[in-house]
C-alpha cells in the first residue's frame, strides 16, 4: 500500500501566476467555482437575460420594423392604456381567462389525481391516457377542437340535435366561437383540457410522496376522509400546488396557440389575450415597440404572483414535518 505523506497542499501546488493570484485576491479562494459557473452564466445571459433586456428596450423605444429605434420612455405604455380600447378589453380577457383556467385546472387536477391514486385496475393505462392532451402538439389538438366547435358543423351541436337522450331536450345549436361569452368559455375549456394532465401527474407525484403512516395515525384517531384530506393531504400538497399554480399561471397568461387557431381574438375582440394582441402589433402591424409593451404589461403581474407563491412555498418547506 502506498502511503500518502501528510504534506501541506499549498507547499506542493505550483505557485499561482500573477493574473491568477490577482483574481484570487479579488474573488477569494473559490475562483475555480466561478469558472465552473461560467458556461451556465453565458447560456443564461444569451438566452434569457439578453432577449428580456431587448424586449424591455423595445417597450420603451419607438422600434418599428426596419427603422432605427430611439428612446421614448413610457410613451408606449401610456398609449395602450389611455388610447387603445382593445388593449383595455385584452387586460380583462387575459385575467378572466387565466383565473378560470387555473382555478378549474387546480380543482379538476386535484380531483383526478385523487381518483387516479385510488384506481388499482388498469392503473398504467389511465395514468398514460391522461397525458395525451399534454403530449399532442397544441396547434394540432386545437385544430381538432376547431372542428368540434365549428360554427356551422359543430360535432357537439350535431350530437345535441341527433343523439338520444340529448335530442330529447332540444338543446342547441350553440354558437361556441361566435358568441362572446361562449367563445371565452370555449377557449378556457380547451386550455383546461390541454393543461390538466400537467396538474394531474404533478399532484399525483405529490400525493405518492405523502407518508402512509400519517393517514394510518389519523385513521386510528378516527379522522374522517374529509378531515384526512383537509388536515394531511392538502397541507402537504401545498408546496407542489404552489409550484404548479405558478407555472400554469405563467403559461396560461401567455397562451397563444389556442386563441390563434380557434378565434383569432374574436368575436369582437372578446378572446384577445396579451400574446395574441402583442402578435398583432409586433408582427402584423410591425409596431415592435407596442407589441413589446403589450407583452411586458404581464411582467409586473407575474412578478407579484411569483413572489407571493414562492414565499408560500418557502414558508411551507421551511419547517420539518
Amino acid at each position, binding site marked *: 500500500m502506498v502511503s500518502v505523506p501528510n504534506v501541506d497542499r499549498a507547499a506542493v501546488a505550483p505557485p499561482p501566476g500573477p493574473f491568477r493570484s490577482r483574481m484570487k485576491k479579488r474573488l477569494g479562494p473559490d475562483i475555480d467555482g466561478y469558472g465552473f459557473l461560467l458556461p451556465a452564466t453565458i447560456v443564461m445571459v444569451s438566452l434569457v437575460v439578453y432577449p428580456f433586456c431587448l424586449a424591455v428596450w423595445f417597450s420603451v423605444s*419607438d422600434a*418599428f*420594423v*426596419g*427603422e432605427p429605434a430611439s428612446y421614448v420612455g413610457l410613451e408606449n405604455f401610456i*398609449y395602450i392604456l389611455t*388610447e*387603445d*380600447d*382593445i388593449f383595455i378589453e385584452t387586460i380583462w380577457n387575459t385575467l378572466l381567462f387565466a383565473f378560470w383556467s387555473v382555478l378549474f385546472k387546480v380543482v379538476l387536477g386535484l380531483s383526478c389525481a385523487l381518483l387516479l391514486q385510488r384506481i388499482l385496475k388498469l392503473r398504467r393505462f389511465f395514468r398514460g391516457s391522461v397525458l395525451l392532451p399534454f403530449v399532442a402538439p397544441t396547434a394540432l389538438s386545437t385544430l381538432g377542437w376547431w372542428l368540434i366547435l*365549428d*360554427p*356551422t*358543423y359543430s360535432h357537439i351541436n350535431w350530437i345535441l340535435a341527433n343523439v338520444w337522450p340529448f335530442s330529447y331536450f332540444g338543446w342547441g345549436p350553440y*354558437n*361556441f*366561437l*361566435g*358568441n362572446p361569452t361562449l*367563445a371565452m368559455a370555449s377557449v378556457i375549456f380547451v386550455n383546461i383540457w390541454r393543461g390538466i394532465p400537467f396538474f394531474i401527474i404533478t399532484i399525483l407525484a405529490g400525493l405518492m410522496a405523502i407518508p402512509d403512516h400519517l393517514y394510518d395515525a389519523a385513521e386510528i384517531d378516527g379522522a374522517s376522509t374529509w378531515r384526512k384530506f383537509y388536515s394531511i393531504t392538502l397541507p402537504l400538497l401545498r408546496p407542489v400546488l404552489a409550484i404548479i399554480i405558478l407555472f400554469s399561471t405563467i403559461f396560461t397568461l401567455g397562451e397563444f396557440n389556442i386563441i390563434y387557431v380557434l*378565434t*383569432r*381574438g*374574436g*368575436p*369582437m*375582440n372578446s378572446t384577445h389575450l396579451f400574446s395574441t394582441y402583442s402578435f*398583432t402589433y409586433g*408582427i*402584423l*402591424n*410591425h*409596431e415592435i415597440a407596442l407589441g413589446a409593451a403589450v407583452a411586458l404589461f404581464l411582467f409586473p403581474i407575474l412578478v407579484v404572483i411569483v413572489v407571493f407563491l414562492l414565499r408560500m412555498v418557502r414558508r411551507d418547506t421551511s419547517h420539518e414535518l
Partner: protein
Amino acid sequence: MVSKTKLTQKNETLSTGAPSRRKFLKGTAAASGGLAGILAAGIAPATAQTRELKMLTNSHFVPASDVELERQLAEFGKAAGVKTRLDRVAHLQLPAVLAGEVQGQKGHDLVSVGNSNPHLYSKHLESVDDLYEKIGKAGGGWTDGTVGKGSDGHHKAIPWFFISFPLALRTDLIASINEDIPDTWDDVHRVGTKLKAKGHPLGIQIAHSVDSNMILRGIMWSYGAKLVDEDSKTVAVNSKESVEAFKFIAALYNDAMTDEVLAWDDRNNNVCLNSGKCSMILNPISAYRSAIKAGTKDKAGNLVHHSIQHVMPPTGPAGRHMAASFNNMGVWKFAKEKELAKEFMAFHFAKDNAEKHLTASKGYNQPVLAGNALHPLYASNSKYYFAPFIGWYTHAIGWPGVPTAAVQTVVDQYLLPDAVATVAVGKASAEDAVKKLESQMKRIYRRAAKREG
C-alpha cells in the same frame, strides 16, 4: 510507456512536416496579396463566382402556380446564366419573414409583397416606376393605379395579381323560389331573406377573417362610404353613408344570415355553400373549385359545382365596388441582384408568361393588367365570365387612397368587422359604432403620421 526512440522519431516527423519561417512568410504574403486584390475589386474570381437570383413568396393554394413560377425562374436563370431559387413560406408566415429580412437587411432579391407592404417597406424597396410604366403600357394599363405605391408616391412594387370576390351562388336554390340572380345589394337582401326562411341563408363573414375585411369594405364603398379620403391620411368613416351601410349590413345579418357568420374564418363560407346550406356567399372561385375536386353532390345526387355560378359583386347606391387582396412583386434595396430581379419581372410579366402563370393557377391569379385579364381560360367556362371585368370594380384596401401601413393596421385589427358586428348583434347603434370606429382609426392614423414625420 513511450520509448525514447519513438519519441525522437515523432519529433523528427513534426519538425520536417512544419513549414520553416521563410516558407511560412512566403505563403502568407501570397495569400494576403490575393485576398487584398479580391477585396479591392469587390468581386470573386471568375471560378468562384456564382450569381443567384433568390425569390421569396408564400405557398400558393394552387401548387401548380408555384411550379410554373419556379419553371419560369429556371428558364430565366438558364438564359441569364445564373442560378435561381424560389423559397416559399406559409402565407401567414410571410409578414414575419419579410419583417426579419428588413430588420436584418439581407435575404432574398425578389419578394412577394401583399396589399400595403409596398407602402410599409417603401424605404427598403427599389423604385420600379419605369418598369411599372413599361409593363403597364404593354399590358393594356392597370385596372387599379393605387396598388404597389410607396409612401413617397413612387411605385415600389409591380402589381402581380389579386384574388377577387364575386358573388358565388347556388342557382338551383335561387330558382326554387322563382327569383332571378341578384344584381344589387337590395336584391341580395330580398333573395337572401326568402332563402333563409327555407333554411338556406346568405353567408358573409362578420368576423376576424380576411374575407370579412374585404367584403364589408366592398359593401361600404357600394353605399358611398369610405374609410379614408383620397389623400390616404384623413379618416373619413364618420359619414351618413357609413351609417346607412352599417344599418344595411345589420339588416342583411338579421334577415338573411345566421349568427354563425360571427365566428367564420375564410374556409367556413366555402363549406357552407358546397354543403347546400348556404345559398350565396362572396368568395373567390375556391368554393367552386373545391366542389369540382371533391365531386360534392347535393341530396338529390347532383354534382354541386354544376349549380354554382359566379356573378359580379352586387351594386349599391354608389355603384359596384369590392375589395381584394393584391399581391405585388418587389425588389429589396439591399438585394444583391437588383438588376437581375428587375429583368426577371419584365420576363415574368410578358404576356406569354403571365398567361401561363394564370393558367397554372386555374384562374385564381387575376391580373391587374387589363390586357391580360382577357384570358382564354375565363372565356372557356361560363362560371368565369365575371373574371375579365371584375378588376375594374375591385380596389385595394385603402381605396380611394393607396393601401398604407395605417390601413393595414386597421385591417389586421379587424376594426371594421368588429364595428359592424356590434351593430348586427344589437350591442351598439350604427351611429355609435361608426363613431367608435372613427376614433379607433384616428389613433392609428395619428400614430402612423407621427412615425412617417
